């Protein structure tokens, strides 16, 4: 399933804004770069912050147990996860 580039782009902007990643240009975040640990080096608080931001931005609900797992590994996996959520909710914003 190919998630839309638009969702990936929104997520990148969200990362920079919600997590105060000053100096980082959203477009420069690689789709497959690890978000946690290495790569962007985000931590558990960032994960929760991200969830609040994602819930607000996309109108989805994310359960505690889903946070920080495979879905959150990279921008690409996150976008696929969001896309899946939107499709399940019958949201026209979902990618094809």
């Amino acid at each position: 399933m190919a998630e839309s580039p638009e969702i990936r782009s929104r997520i990148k902007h969200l990362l920079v804004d919600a997590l105060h990643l000053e100096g980082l240009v959203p477009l420069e975040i690689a789709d497959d770069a690890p978000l946690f640990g290495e790569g962007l080096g985000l931590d558990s608080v960032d994960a929760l912050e991200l969830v609040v931001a994602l819930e607000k931005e996309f109108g989805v609900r994310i359960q505690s147990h889903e946070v920080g797992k495979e879905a959150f590994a990279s921008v690409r996996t996150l976008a696929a996860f969001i896309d899946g959520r939107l499709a399940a909710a019958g949201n026209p914003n979902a990618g094809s």
Partner: protein
Amino acid sequence: MPGADPETGTARTVVVTGLGAVSPLGWSLESLWEGLRAGLTAVGPFDRFDHSGHRTHIAAQVDLASEPRRARRRWKARRVSNADRFAVAAARAAVARSAIDPGGCRERTGVYFGSSTGGMFESETYLETLLAAAGGRGRPPAASLLASQQNNGPGDAVARDLGISGPAQTVSAACASGAMAIGDAILAVRRGEVDVAIAGGSDSLCRLTYAGFNALRSVDERPCRPFRRDRAGLSLGEGAAALVLEPLERAMARGARPLVLAAGEAATCDAHHMTSPHPEGRGAAEAIRGALADARLDPLEIDFVNAHGTGTPLNDAAECAALVAVFGDRTTDLPVTSTKSLVGHLLGSAGALEAVATILCLLHGEVHPMPDDGMSDPGIPLRLVLGRPLRLARARHALSTSLAFGGANAALVFTRHGDHDAAR
């Protein structure tokens, strides 16, 4: 040793001569002990504020309606927060039990308290009204409605109530505040800065911490189950606890009965992360070792542990790692309990309430249980006291630990009086 006489190296022995507590289990020490023995959690539905928008709907609240009537009459309606109320009640009970006369030693009595949010609950109500007024809805609140807002409120209220003129300080170190306050008091008495120290902590439920811990997804929807396999977070509680500390010689000279020795204390910091503990509990292990060294005890001599035990997956694992690091093979044999399983996490007063619980266990020769709820975690090889109190009639030395948000750690060691080696 901190507080020791620089010439002889010996330090005054510090004893606890009074205890007091206000908790979700009641306004008295007796109701606290009864509740602890029964091992039933006080965490449940609560109505202090609207929590309908949260993921969780439980906490352990103090029954405000049960506040002793005498005390209620004495308060002016304004300027008193719940946290102040709890603190003063606990301190008065401790002083009454110790039978000291604060008026007779005002300038030689100090107050060492801990609080993480002081009068925040009352301030939230004030702020809500102020924000509404700024938005054109209603009039601004009267300044008099703002109860003592800062974290020094409860400690100052205790000092004011007792009329003391010695030092009064409040430490605000999140979940380690109460234990650190007691630690500071022990040092103050040892070095002769004061002859009597009233030490403790107080915190009340408030929207800030309830929302904050929920935002961190650290709160369990069910009453917390520290160290258990399916633990899913902490439960919030409120209350206050206080101890009266003085030099052993002074207590004996005035015919008071020391309850326990405040044998050792230590405080460290993980310096690791703002919300997560060091995964191996490094700072906690250092605090435990420090308190044991301060008490001149070997780990083998500790009879039971009152753990920090919040019920959050990471904290419990880190604390377990710390206990294993210090106690080694003995860990599987050393009884461990967590008072938070019964009264929730009292934040700034947790360390103080748990010190009181530890002392009560020593005095009664029983370790209070945690509810026998959930499954044991193979990764947590601790000997948990579950379901029923564990009779330890000959328990002499006990350890109480506090691992705070932000990384501060504190450990306290108490020893039953009469078991203390006079030569130390």
